[in-house]
């Protein structure tokens, strides 16, 4: 039962569906040059960050997302030295990568300087990725940063979530093409693929796969369960110039690292690429179109 004195945050996932989180306190609110940034304290999810009214991550479930975009490509690519994270102003993905000693450089390109500051202040556990000396934060438009770069990165993570917000440019053919060019000949790009469950998200989901499938020789999709994401079910794209996410997967090598995880396991790695029939059908239709 809701009581009249309570504050609830509603994340409108569609016009007719919302995820409501009871809020103890609002910790921060501002409009940056790019978006509305809000930080809340809640019982169920701990602190959480909302951009333009949509939950981006919470203390309770950020590990799922951050582990899944990091360990999946790292368990496939045998020789990673240089990483590029586009978006990623919270530092969570960078933090996961810093656990790998062989990585020499991690570039985080986040246009919104204020978002980085807010995360440093309110999510120090997540933002501690920024403290590692291998991590460089660049405040620039993602497309602008990629322009002219060639044969430079082993892994690129597109950390932007919203294909209709200020990061719209990171869901386009020109972006995927620029990533392809900026990757080395055996590079991998992992990107947010969203959720195809609600009708209004389906066309964005389809168009992403259509574009990436035509851009990279290997293009597979994998999934995770993330409670604060739309429909609680989230997908990632694995686009690669050389390595296949299953055929070139090396569980033994990854296990020997003895990394501590809460979501990712080498069993789950394979399972994550096993998709529900309706998702498989959507993807196949785009591959054949």
């Amino acid at each position, binding site marked *: 039962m809701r009581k009249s004195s309570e504050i609830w945050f509603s994340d409108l996932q569609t016009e007719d569906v919302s995820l409501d989180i009871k809020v103890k306190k609002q910790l921060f609110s501002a409009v940056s040059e790019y978006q509305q940034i809000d930080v809340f304290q809640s019982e169920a999810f701990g602190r959480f960050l909302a951009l333009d009214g949509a939950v981006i991550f919470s203390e309770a479930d950020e590990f799922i997302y951050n582990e899944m975009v990091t360990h999946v490509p790292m368990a496939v690519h045998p020789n990673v030295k240089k990483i590029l994270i586009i978006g990623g102003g919270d530092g969570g993905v960078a933090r996961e990568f810093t656990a790998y000693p062989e990585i020499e450089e991690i570039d985080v390109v986040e246009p919104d300087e204020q978002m980085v500051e807010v995360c440093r202040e309110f999510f120090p556990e997540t933002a501690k990725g920024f403290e590692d000396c291998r991590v460089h934060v660049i405040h620039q438009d993602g*497309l602008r940063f990629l322009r*002219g770069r060639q044969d430079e990165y082993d892994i690129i993570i597109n950390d932007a979530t919203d294909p209709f917000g*200020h990061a719209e440019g990171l869901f*386009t053919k*020109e*972006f995927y*093409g620029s990533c392809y060019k900026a990757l080395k000949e055996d590079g991998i790009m992992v990107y947010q693929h969203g959720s195809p469950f609600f009708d209004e998200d389906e066309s964005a989901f389809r168009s992403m796969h259509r574009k990436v499938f035509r851009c990279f020789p290997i293009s597979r999709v994998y999934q995770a369960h993330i409670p604060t994401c739309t429909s609680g079910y989230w997908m990632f794209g694995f686009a690669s110039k050389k390595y296949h996410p299953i055929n070139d997967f090396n569980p033994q090598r990854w296990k020997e690292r003895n990394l501590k995880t809460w979501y990712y396991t080498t069993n789950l790695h394979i399972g994550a690429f096993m998709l529900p029939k309706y998702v498989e059908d959507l993807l196949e239709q785009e591959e054949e179109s």
Partner: protein
Amino acid sequence: MNLEKQAYAPICEALERFKRKRVVPFDVPGHKRGRGNPELTRLLGAECVGLDVNSMKPLDNLCNPVSVIAQAEELTADAFGAAHAFLMVGGTTSAVQAMVLSVCKSGDKIILPRNVHKSVLNALILCGAVPVYVNLRIHPVIGVALGMEVEALEEAIKANPDAKAVLINNPTYYGICSNLKALTELAHRHGLKVLCDEAHGTQLYFGENLPMSGMAAGVDMAAISMHKSGGSLTQSSVLLIGPNMNQGHVRQIINLTQTTSASYLLLSSLDLSRRNLALRGKECFREVVRMAEYAREEINSIGGYYAYGKELVDGQSVYDFDVTKLCIYTKSIGLTGIEVYDLLRDEYDIQIEFGDIGNIMAYISIGDRIRDIERLVGALEDIKRLYQSDAGELAYVDSVLPEVACSPQQSFYARKETLPIRKTAGRVCGEFVMCYPPGIPILAPGELITDEIIDHILYAREKGCSLQGAADPVVDHLQVLV
């Protein structure tokens, strides 16, 4: 310009007052504030449909403005530095036609460059005036027709001392500006009226450090596409006149072809855009220039493409350059402008203004954002990576200057026959053939068809240009004079 007065928008204020009165409509339009057409109301919004009203006393009448429209026109004239301004609802096409019809009648000669918009040639069909073309230099690299040179106009006047007027495109679609002041002075010395097609020139009146505007140069009439860089609704436009024109006569000319049910959606958009430009135009166009210059720099650093700017200025055929224009020469990466135009739309979801044989144009305006510029530049880089081909293979002819064999009006109404296009060389054309956009005719009625021109049409068609104007939509056949 009186800034205090410019803060008013008389038409919009009258519409607001009218809305508050809740007048019961027993007049047209029959949708009655949208109630009679709920589907349209859902599409356009109740506010918008509610403003779609008819002329009436409190809202004035565009055919004979005496109150709020007259005030809005006065403010517009003041903002543009004109003797009078007419608000237009038939597109800049109607403004251009009103210019020509105001100064030419049947048989009169009018001097113009060949790369005029089809609306000019249509006006010649309407009034029976005869075109005298001034040869324009073509830029050796980008293949674009340049500005009108003073010497070229002088020659044309000498050869046609009976000419009544000269029409100048300034700036052109590509940003090329002529020495408008010198051309105007020369024409005036010989008693010619000067008409300026300023469809791409609204910004010249409000921005800083931009080329000289028509009114500042002393032209007699100027057609301004407010809906292009000015921010008003599509199909709204402004016609300006100088002190030596008869306002009443021009109004009569406009009323020959103008609707008697002018749309208040269009009129209010002109009113608000004029106010915005008068009050904030300087900052708006500073931002537009900044974005266009940034895009130029970034595109040029990709390599291969050539986004041209001020360096084209040579003091003659390119007297000045409008830096708000972003045109890019693409043939150097082995692709025609049309091909890049299609790729941008089909593969990258980016719609640009036009692609011709060697160039594309991306329209930069007060509504743009840097992040969208990044997309455009990123897409151009990706197109180069994926589609670049050998530039040497593309031979073409552009802007072929045709010979006028017969007046456009006579040819338009003459007896004609239809022939396969390859069989028409040596005949006089009876219709228009143009690439759209930009809508500049390759052939106009009355022009002599040559093999060179046929090659040009077929090449443009092969490269995916949308050919318009001819009776045969795919232009396998042309109508020629018997």
